[in-house]
């Protein structure tokens, strides 16, 4: 199936602010029609990457390629991209109608066509009854929809979204997330979505790139990165609560954690130190395994988060809510070899 969305490639993008290198060579390929998330903690360079893609910021080296055309150095207006800003950036002195019409007026569209297009976009995001209002008279959610309508009105092939949901309350955020995804499918456009919320990225994106300190550390589908995090940083950034890390000793087919020996699926050769990662939901509490004691329990309704102390390391387990564990209780924890992620303690890379 071919998409009308644009393909995006970034080649070795470098951005410096004085002595600080904000982006250390970003390489990225986004397929036409894909919903692609740039995920990372704040200051990791994801928004800068988006702004370079939009042409709002100049970069120091590398190429931006849209649909096979090198657009490096061209003005934002020449790139046929639309953007939804975190702050929405609506024009406060214009009505909602004029806000949505603005991109069309700038390219001298006949007014009958503008009228039709504005009403169509507004009805797609369900704000057709608000066209006469000013942005200041809208709620946060309505403002966000107005910004979306303005972005889709001229049918761009690439859609850039900079944390568009971060100013909405939690419930509205979940609803809008789903609608955004449907809208992107219906319009058949490529979307690049910046967020620091890993759950948001995991649920909305076809693929995502994880940014850490100005570099992409991993690219893949949400399942890929969740199942096989490439580094310790990725592993501890994803999941809620994030992955547990335990120091261990690796030799051959065996790993020793807190004096407890476990059998692995593969042979890892000579003896060495290792960091063992296990997702909280993969930890079982029972009669056998590594000795631990319960520090704290948090009820989440359908599940319970249990803080466990394994010797010097702290581990969090996500257990079914029926498992009743008293704080201070002595227990044993175990997990399958298949659920263990092994990382090099020096390089933090996956073994």
């Amino acid at each position: 199936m071919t998409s009308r969305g644009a393909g995006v490639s970034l080649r070795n993008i470098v951005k410096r602010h004085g002595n600080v290198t904000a982006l250390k060579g970003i390489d990225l390929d986004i397929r036409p029609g894909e919903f692609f998330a740039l995920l990372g903690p704040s200051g990791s360079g994801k928004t800068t990457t988006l702004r370079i893609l939009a042409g709002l910021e100049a970069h120091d080296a590398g190429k931006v390629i849209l649909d096979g055309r090198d657009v490096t150095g061209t003005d934002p207006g020449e790139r046929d991209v639309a953007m939804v800003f975190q702050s929405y950036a609506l024009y406060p002195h214009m009505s909602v109608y004029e806000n949505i019409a603005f991109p069309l007026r700038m390219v001298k569209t006949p007014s009958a066509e503008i009228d039709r297009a504005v009403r169509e976009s507004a009805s797609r995001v369900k704000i057709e009854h608000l066209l006469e209002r000013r942005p200041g008279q809208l709620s946060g959610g309505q403002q966000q929809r107005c910004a979306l309508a303005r972005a889709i009105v001229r049918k761009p092939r690439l859609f850039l979204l900079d944390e568009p949901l971060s100013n909405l309350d939690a419930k509205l955020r979940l609803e809008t997330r789903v609608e955004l995804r449907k809208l992107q499918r219906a319009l058949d456009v490529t979307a690049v979505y910046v967020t620091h919320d890993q759950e948001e990225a995991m649920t909305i994106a076809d693929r995502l790139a994880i940014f850490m300190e100005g570099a992409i550390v991993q690219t893949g589908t949400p399942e890929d990165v969740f199942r096989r995090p490439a580094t310790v940083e990725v592993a501890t950034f994803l999941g809620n609560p994030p992955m547990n890390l335990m120091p261990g000793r690796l030799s051959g087919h065996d790993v020793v954690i807190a004096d407890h020996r476990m059998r692995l699926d593969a042979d890892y050769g000579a003896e060495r130190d290792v960091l063992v990662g296990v997702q909280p939901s993969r930890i079982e509490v029972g009669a056998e395994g590594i000795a631990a004691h319960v520090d704290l329990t948090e009820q989440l309704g359908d599940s319970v988060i249990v803080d466990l102390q394994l010797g010097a390391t702290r581990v969090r387990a996500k257990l079914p809510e029926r498992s009743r564990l008293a704080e201070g209780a002595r227990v044993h924890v175990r997990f399958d070899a298949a659920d263990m992620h092994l990382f090099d303690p020096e390089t933090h890379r996956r073994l």
Partner: protein
Amino acid sequence: MKRAFMRRLALACAAGALLSVWGFPVIWALLTSFKTERDVLAYPPKILFEPSLASYRDVLSGASSIVPNLVSSIIVASGATLLTLLFAVPAGYALARLDLPGKRASGFYVLATQMLPPVGLIIPYYLVLQRLGALDTYAGLIVIYLTFSLPFAIWLLVSYFEDVPREMEEAALLDRAGRLRAFWYVILPQVRGGIAVTTVFIFLNAWNEFLFAVVLGGNRVRPVTVAMFNFISVEQTRWASLAAGAMIAMAPVMLLGLIAQKHIVKGLTVGAVKGGGRR
């Protein structure tokens, strides 16, 4: 309930007291302007008197008419205001937005020019205008006013431009407006309050200016402030004519204030950006 009433009463009294301090000279001048020269000098001052329009007739159509001077003032003040805005608006925008080398230093320079006492500049300005052959010309006086109003206007406008979120402009750029149209359609409407304030300031300063007008103007260019000064002479001071002239000279200023007030609206940009409640 009662407390609230007392509070309002106290506030009203305070406001009334302040208003009377401001209003007394104005009202005194207004009354004087309707008196005859004889009544003006009466002692004790006459509260009740027969109003006369003689002074107004005198300053409007009499031998010492100030109408040509009003025209002079309008030309000088509007010229200075228009030219100032023409340069200050783009300059303020540039200083607020673009990364120019020496941007900080230029901001200081702008303020430094405001710290000079104007009197110190009269002689140099006189000599400069004289050598240029621009003494007693509209162009000369307007340029001199520009040297004061322009830095001040730029400095005032920069803060207004800095309040316009950058993203709003970027959105316009992505909407294919280009820099000029983004400026015209998106940025400029956000700062119209600031432009109104600046216009009023510059116009008022130029309209009320006396020192430079009396030294650098003279015969051909004689603004109303200078003309009114001529009512005070060695032989006599024509208080009633002076007051009538002052009343007439105040009128355009009042009018400007009323018009501008409508544009200096608060909260114009509220709702553009989350949490963005500015002027």
